[in-house]
């Protein structure tokens, strides 16, 4: 069974926010909210500097606190790719998941339910990449099955140095940044 994740090449990423714009139009994300975002980490003193740019979103954690804390079961792991999703009908908007997420990836949609990245499951089911991956002008994002040793993403993670964000939170995130 597939277990979807992402590997994002920080060497190629320029932080242009196309991933943010594409997610907004693809998923009709309401104004004032976004499901993905850019973080920049600048280190050093001028002119000896380094910059890491990351396109961030829900990590679809293997051990997702947003799922275990949900009182109604609206937050769940979908069998297709083990993507973490929210059932809009079952969600009561209690914000427990919003508080539990170490990444700040969730928000309450104006229509009352918790919302966040879905890995564009509606696209993936049709054989397409998530919108953020498909739009990226730098081709820095790779989406695929972490459990398939022959997938592109597995090969990248096997051959390139990488790290996750906040691994110490212990949620076993599934988005990796190639350095």
């Amino acid at each position: 069974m597939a277990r979807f994740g992402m590997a994002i090449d920080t060497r190629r990423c320029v932080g242009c926010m196309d991933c943010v714009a594409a997610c907004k139009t693809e998923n009709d994300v309401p104004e004032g909210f976004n499901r993905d975002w850019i973080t920049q980490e600048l280190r050093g003193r001028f002119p000896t500097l380094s910059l890491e740019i990351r396109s961030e979103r829900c990590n679809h954690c293997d051990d997702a606190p947003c799922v275990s804390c949900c009182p109604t079961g609206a937050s769940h792991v979908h069998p297709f790719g083990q993507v973490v999703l929210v059932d809009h009908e079952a969600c009561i908007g209690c914000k427990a998941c919003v508080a539990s997420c170490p990444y700040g990836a969730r928000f309450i949609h104006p229509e009352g339910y918790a919302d966040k990245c879905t890995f564009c499951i509606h696209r993936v089911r049709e054989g397409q990449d998530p919108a953020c991956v498909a739009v990226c002008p730098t081709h820095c994002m790779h989406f695929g099955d972490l459990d398939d040793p022959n997938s592109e993403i597995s090969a990248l993670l096997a051959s390139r140095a990488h790290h996750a964000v906040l691994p110490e939170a212990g949620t076993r995130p599934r988005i990796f940044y190639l350095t």
Partner: protein
Amino acid sequence: MTRSATQDSKRSGSLSRRRFLSLVGLGGGAVAASRLARPVHSAGGADGPAAGASGSEDRVEQIPTFCDICFWKCGAIASVRNGRLWKVEGNPDDPLSRGRLCPRGTGGVGAHFDPDRLRRPLIRRRNRGEDEWVEVTWDEALTYIADRMKAIRVEHGPEAMALFSHGIGGTFLKHTMKAFGTPNLSAPSFAQCRGPRDVGFNLTFGEDVGSPERTDIRNTRCLVLLGSHLGENMHNTQVQEFAQAVGSGATVIVVDPRFSIAASKAKHYLPIRPGTDLALLLAWMQVLLSEDLYDHAYVEQYGFGFEAFAQSIARYTPEWAYPETGLEPELIRETAREMARHRPATLVHPGRHVTWYGDDAQRSRAVALLNALLGSWGRKGGFFQPAHLSIPAYPYPEYPHSERGKVDNPGRKYPFATETITNGIREATLTGQPYPVKGWFVYATNLLQALPNQEETLRAIQNLDLLVVVDVVPSEIAGWADVVLPESVYLERHDDLNVEWFREPFVALRQPVVKAPDDQKPNWWIARELARKLDLAQYYPWTDIEEYLRARIEKAGLSYDELQAKGILRGAPQPVYFADTGRSVEPGAVGSDPLVGLEANFPTPSGKIEFYSTQLAAAGFDPVPTYRAPEPVPNGWFRILFGRSPVHSFSRTQTNPILHELMPENVVWVNGDVAARLGLQGGQKVRLRNQDGVVSDPIAVRATQAIRGDCVYLVHGFGHTAKGLRRARGKGASDAGLLTRYVVDPLMGGTGMNVNFVTIEPEA
């Protein structure tokens, strides 16, 4: 750890987009015939079958067109879901977008839905600049304009009308203006942007680099960027190829006073003192000569005046350049050697916005000469020679001849200008010399943010009998107009064909995807109706734009129906590299690579690459570039520098709801140590005061290590003051307002704008 403004803004706002759309009621059904229509599962609302999907099938139409959020003209495919514009994606057939748009293109949807759009023609009700209007019909507006234009023609001649335009949308207005009898057609893209580069390369190779540039970034092994901030400057193909080059391990060398995104990808970052780039370029060339690292065969075969050039360059050692540039001699040597190691697949990028210090054509010529030493012009990984399809122009009647000629450059004062100088037209409007200019027609360019010294622009406007602005949003310049004409956005209109000059030949079609929501009209319609009112109907023999487009395409032996369906028609690959490329780069490749095989051709006076320019010498200029130090920054002041954001185009996109949200305002970058010394905190609001006492609107400080201490930096296009730009007004500061000083390039009339200084005043 610093989190970007993007991150900070990620939870701002409250009004949902869905609600906002229903409030303003912008419907706009799909108009063009359904193409590639296919049912898809609902994307919004539900997350998947187990998450309560509606199961309903949406009807999605996909219509190819090309983007207009900037001038790059990327091939795009727009999706209309259940009759409503949904998204715009790259057209995989398009050599420019290669199936992926930039964030501005992706956010192009917002241009259609922007609640701040112009909706109906407007005629000024009170004094110019008071931004008070009466809504009128198109007939009233065009009759008013035509009557004034006729009066100007009677009193001052047709040349007293001038056009300022930007982008492919200006094509038909240019046609109407030429038919009217004026040669004064200009665009800020020359004298406020790429003009010096075009002139510098023309003087050296006999050709300029064009747009999109003929830079072979994807094949380069060593990319040198001087101030070019690819990644922030989001010219799609360039950024895509930049990432490709970085990903394939090409060496990147970045010269910039600011640690740009591109600098963060560089093997060598050169934090140059602003204004001294020419000193570095001369020193690099000196190293290539003194260490005998240049391409001898190339220079011998193609070069003219090399001896005189070498003599002139000899004095510019890295040790000489050190106190000018602040760059260690060893760093200059090391980077020159690195460039030589990868030649001819070394690309010293010519940049695009290069109107910096007023010596810009000579600096650009030095960039061209450095490339010539590296043998990169015409070579793979350097500069290709663009290919294009031959698509005949529409057969129009001949335009009237102007006896007086153009107004912008009397006596060829700027002898090497290759296009009309916008600031030359402004000057003539102010002085009435060499003859009066009494009418301005402004299309899709916000002159108050594009030209330096706003006060001169406003004074020139006071001398006009007519100022017409055609635009999609009520910009600052629109506020000063007599008549404002609302244009439909690119997703709602046809434009002329994009017959592109690029790595491979192709032609692209822009066609409507949705209807304009109100009484906006496409520029071709505006230009044609105006021509009819001016009794110039014979210049528009076609009745409909599609008749015009079809005629051009079919005359070229291509199918318009196929172009409509695909958006792009590509020609067969043609050679774009010199025949000798195969010999010097890839032995054995000759004959197998269809891109290799061009005869080298340099349309200069000598027919060769002009290391020494007799043209320049004859006109009294330096035949080989020589260095003059920039004016030093006074103590306690900072040089103000400006640049681009990947999510905005000039000052034209700040009200686009999607792009606004990605970057609602600009900030001023101040070196962290300097900020600490001045007692400034990150995020604190300040005002910038320039040397002439002009004070900016409040702007937040970004205290950062990523910039030198002798300059400050802000993204161009913010600090709007126009009443109608409700979403953008009062957010951030305008760099343009602070650019009261400019130095005119004596070769070509461009305005060097990085010559202004500011102090930083905390906002009480």
